[in-house]
């Protein structure tokens, strides 16, 4: 079963998500639409040959920081602002 795309997805439960496998600077992500936040795949740096393929990923949905919170003041620092969705203990298959 695929979860509906929503920013208010409840976390800490097993979910099955469908989307496009993409690479991001902080790791591999599942993209489920231009307006939806990415879902990072814990422990996976890049998708390799699966990049740009449609995939289904099963894992425990969590919300966490993936980098230290970057400064947005006059001395900006490097990182991902805020929390992100993260899939723990994930497994996947191509569609």
């Amino acid at each position, binding site marked *: 079963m695929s979860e509906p795309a929503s920013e208010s997805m409840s976390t800490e439960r097993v979910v099955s998500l469908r989307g496009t496998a*993409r*690479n*991001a*600077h*902080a790791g591999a*992500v599942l*993209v489920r639409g231009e307006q939806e*936040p*990415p879902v990072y795949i814990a422990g996976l740096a890049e998708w390799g040959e699966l990049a740009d393929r449609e995939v289904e990923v099963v894992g425990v949905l969590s919300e966490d920081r993936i*980098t*230290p919170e*970057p*400064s*947005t003041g*006059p*001395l*900006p*620092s*490097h*990182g*991902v*602002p*805020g929390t*992100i*969705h993260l899939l723990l203990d994930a497994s996947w298959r191509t569609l």
Partner: protein
Amino acid sequence: MHKWFLRAAVVAAVGFGLPTLIATTAQAAAVAAPSPRAPLAPPLAEDRSYRTWRVEDYVEAWERYHGREMTEDERENLARGCIGVTVVNLNREDLSNPPLNLSFGSLRTAEAVQAALNKIVDTHPSPAQYEAAVAKDPILKRLKNVVKALPSWIDSAKLKASIFSKRFYSWQNPDWSEERAHTTYRPDRETDQVDMSTYRYRARPGYVNFDYGWFDQDTNTWWHANHEEPRMVVYQSTLRHYSRPLQDFDEQVFTVAFAKKD
């Protein structure tokens, strides 16, 4: 194909004006004398696209290269992540952030501008002499911000034009339309210069805010980072790896700025 390749192709395809001058100058720059001192680090092996460095190992290599200890202020800047790597390599106490006012759509243009600027500063000009030389230079006279790029408070004998790259997300103002975002950072068709005056360090939601890469011309590699401290690591990458397609960014510029020699 990545956007900067397309931009380079567009510049190469325009058979008149600045691009032609750039092609000639780039050939001249390619035969420039190599740096007399040992590089900061060995080049990457041919079969590797990047290497990961612990921050302390990078600091040790940087200190060996510069022949002095990194100051506390520089260590604090370095801890900012990729932007810090570029700041410490600019080696200028007067800079908090890398200046973006000489940014271009292709590395080829940036290298031509760098060569033209270094030809001028190698004569150790006064600010007035620098401005006069810029006005005569066939490449530089057509660009914006070249005169103000000179830090006139630093002896020009201590300056060298250097290159870094910046990858970022174009939607820098939430009030912009999609069309505005996609066109704001498009290079000028004649000069390849990119107007970065509206850039505000904003991230695409859910992604990293930017990635700066310092061009190490001794080894033809680019120095950047995963993120700020803690758990920061430094990357030494090929241009292809540094520029690989990532969801975080839809723009990349190549920027020329004056660094201070030791």
